[in-house]
């Protein structure tokens, strides 16, 4: 699943480079995913379970609460940074996905710490960063491919 996820993020980065090469969108994607996983997801998990809100509505409340948390954070940032509509939509989407990932990743870490399993701290810290870097790699690969094509074409004449 890790390779599929990385491949998917890489492909999205590539498509963004194709669609709008301005770095603001790709940075939104990379930073949104990484921050969603590293900050919003753990925060959502902590907020949900310390306030015991998951008891409400047979536990189904955790999905809307996670999404509201992610989207409201993006809207709050937008109030300061004044993003364009595509950037705002992209930021809300990736922050929501990142929050869902970060939430379940946080629970996995807590379970591993609470049981006989040992947590790999490097993987916990690096995985969210690697997901963001995969998006950047996809973005850069289009430029690299075009550059390589131009160089080859210049040599060949």
């Amino acid at each position, binding site marked *: 699943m890790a390779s599929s996820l990385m491949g998917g993020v890489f492909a999205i980065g590539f498509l963004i480079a194709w669609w709008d090469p301005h770095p603001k969108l790709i940075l939104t994607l990379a930073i949104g995913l990484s921050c969603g996983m590293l900050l919003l997801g753990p925060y959502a998990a902590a907020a949900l379970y310390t306030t015991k809100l998951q008891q409400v509505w047979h536990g189904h409340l955790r999905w809307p609460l996670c999404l509201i948390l992610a989207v409201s954070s993006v809207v709050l940032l937008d109030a300061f940074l004044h993003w364009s509509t595509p950037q705002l939509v992209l930021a809300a989407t990736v922050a929501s996905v990142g929050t869902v990932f970060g939430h379940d990743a946080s629970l996995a870490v807590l379970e591993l710490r609470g*049981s006989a*399993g040992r947590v790999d701290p490097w993987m916990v810290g690096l995985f969210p960063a690697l997901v963001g870097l995969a998006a950047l790699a996809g973005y850069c690969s289009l430029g690299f491919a075009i550059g390589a094509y131009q160089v080859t074409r210049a040599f060949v004449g």
Partner: protein
Amino acid sequence: MATLADTLRHSFEDLLLGPPQFDPTANLPNMVVYPVFPTHLAPDPPDVVSLTEAMRRGVRLSDTGIVTQVHIDNPLPTAVLVGESDILVGPTQLRAVQFSCLVPPGRRASIPVNCVEAGQPTVYQAQFTDTAACPWYLRSFKLEQLSRHGDNHQHRIWDRIKAYLHHTGTVSSTQDVCAVFDQFGDDLDDLSRVFPLQPGQVGCVSAVGQDLFIEIFGDPEILEERYDQVLHSALVEAIAHPTREVTPASQVDGVLDELIDASRSSKVVHSRSLRDSGRTQIFNKGAIAGSGLVSEGRLVHLTAHKRCWGFGRAFHEQLPELKHQRSERAKEHADLFAQLDDDYTRRCKRYRSFLRKLTPSRTTSAKPYVDTVSKDDSTERLATEPLPLSNDLHEFFLRLFRR
């Protein structure tokens, strides 16, 4: 206090693997059983009885109306071994015991269980009348869940059973895991004869396809009482998932040492009301997950599962080697087996006499005892237990973040 690894090392020093049992006609090419024998037997039989035997002699098990708890009332003057994943059968929802435990003489207690029949409601105060085997497919999943998370997630067990019944083509209107034994009942009866219990045998390592299922008891009498369940829980896997491959003997030979190694990082689990009677520890390392019940420094019951994926070899390729091993081991330990036969016959007489004298020392209570502290605690725990947004995602991160 000795660790589980120390107890296992001490216990395994006196154990050896016997001649492999297999079907030479290759009707069952994906199962080989290696019986486990002690190198000597103590003269005294155990003062413990299995749950099946105890139920015949007055032990009552009743439904508390709580999915994760069953009440046990032991009026006998001896301890009762409730085995990991024993399935409790009665006119109520079927339950599988979470982990092995010892119920002390004269004790009323609640034992932790999981529901293995999602479509059947609980019936308060209904009596469980019998025990049955649990397929290793579910047992190994439960062991892994317990060792990883310290608890079994009920919804995952139901999902697992549903998938299992679907894969094996078993139809059950109530999603009853035992329906698989009805589905393959004739084959189970026929093929059980290939793997007879040997005198003095205390356990077995069953190689089924690319898995090893290990079950060892402290005393041969307890294995004898439970052998049908032990065998059926592995055999049903071989029948339900037919392949031409089986794990080779090279993977089996070192498995006891691997269990000792895996048990170094173990975790104690206990029922609140049985905290003072034996200690159950669960462990998980690499491809091994298991649990061991230790009482007074002695191993009472060990169950473990080892995945040997990628190591399976065609049965027909291994057949000459297996035949050679069978004759070599039988020849090498011929004196020991003869001695075990004599010793076990003597012990059995004493054990049967002990069983005959076993009568309830009091009448059993009609009303199920509910461990109220545990009930409140479990309700609170369930209510506040973090739930993942996606089970698949959660499993993915558990695998990714485990060192």
